[in-house]
């Protein structure tokens, strides 16, 4: 100890401040940093030249993790419900045409499906739609179409979230 007088504690801070080293080097003068920045700039330019796919990749890379997770979950829900399809109940008895779009829409017979109330005899075409009958019990349980809707809405919400984040970062 140099002397016995009581130092005011601010002196500790002053002494620390004056004895702390200061930055001597300019980091931007370091060749390693210059090379790294140049290569990153080149990578970015290449990426921008890659067009739509590049922008899509950019969107996913810079997307918030929550948005990505939400989109993945929604997509999983949607894919789990779509192949089996479902019938959306619009009211007491009415049924909409919101049915398994993937398989129905791709079937030529689907376009010719008879509207409700048709009195025609069942044709062979209706057998194509048999798989939907298997889905009916689920539909009646009230789960399937709502899962589809939730999945779709989830994807929309996730995309909106990603876009909003992208715009906010660009603002």
């Amino acid at each position, binding site marked *: 100890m140099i002397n016995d007088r009581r130092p005011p504690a601010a002196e*500790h801070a002053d002494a*620390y401040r*004056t004895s702390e080293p200061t930055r001597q080097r300019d980091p931007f003068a370091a060749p390693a940093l210059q090379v790294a920045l140049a290569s990153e700039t080149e990578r970015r330019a290449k990426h921008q030249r890659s067009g739509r796919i590049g922008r899509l990749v950019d969107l996913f890379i810079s997307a918030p993790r929550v948005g990505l997770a939400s989109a993945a979950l929604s997509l999983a829900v949607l894919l789990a419900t779509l192949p089996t399809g479902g019938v959306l109940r619009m009211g007491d008895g009415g049924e909409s045409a919101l049915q398994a779009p993937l398989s129905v829409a791709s079937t030529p017979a689907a376009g010719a499906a008879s509207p409700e109330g048709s009195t025609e005899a069942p044709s062979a075409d209706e057998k194509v739609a048999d798989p939907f009958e298997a889905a009916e019990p689920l539909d009646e349980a009230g789960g399937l179409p709502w899962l589809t809707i939730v999945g779709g809405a989830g994807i929309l919400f996730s995309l909106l979230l990603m876009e909003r984040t992208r715009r906010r970062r660009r603002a």
Partner: protein
Amino acid sequence: MLKGAGESEERLRLLAAARRGDSGAFRALFTPDLDLAWRMALRITGEPAGADDALQEGLISAYRALDRVEPRNLRGWFVRIVQNAARDALRRERRRPTLPIRSGEGSDGSDERGAVAEPQAGAASDPVLAAERGELAGELAAALEQIPEERRTAILLYDVDGYDYAEIAEITGCSVGTVKSRISRGRGELRGLLVDLRPGTNLEGQALRGRDD
């Protein structure tokens, strides 16, 4: 020194240019924060060379992540990147220990991580004053080593660097209330530690209170 939350028009313009690949704009964007980031890294690595490396790595990481940053608190964002680089370097160093080159043993009670530099030119004109300052700085460094990093950081930013609560909140990415709490608790711990380092002295109620009282 840039103050407060939100970024100036000039900084936003530089950010946009840097995102387009303008390295000059990138340099201008973070040059005002280099000293602060370097000091923060130094306080983690304990040696200037380590702080230099951390600053360089932090700049590279920041450049790569420019597209993802939200332009609200660029200074805090950049400082935290450099701090993380310094912590990573420290972890790597601990996994692969090397023999440190010491300029002198810590006779002032500071270990090698908490060591501060040799007294500088201003104090060198008075050897007694220089030695006394060195001793005080060493005491504070040794005491700071024993308190948690977030409290140490808050105290150093407030009492040594002179930032206000709002700026420290911006730099560290936490609320003003948290900053106040960390400073208050850290000072309480420092008081006890400094008294232990100087038995016979009474620092109660004095430790690092110069700015508030």
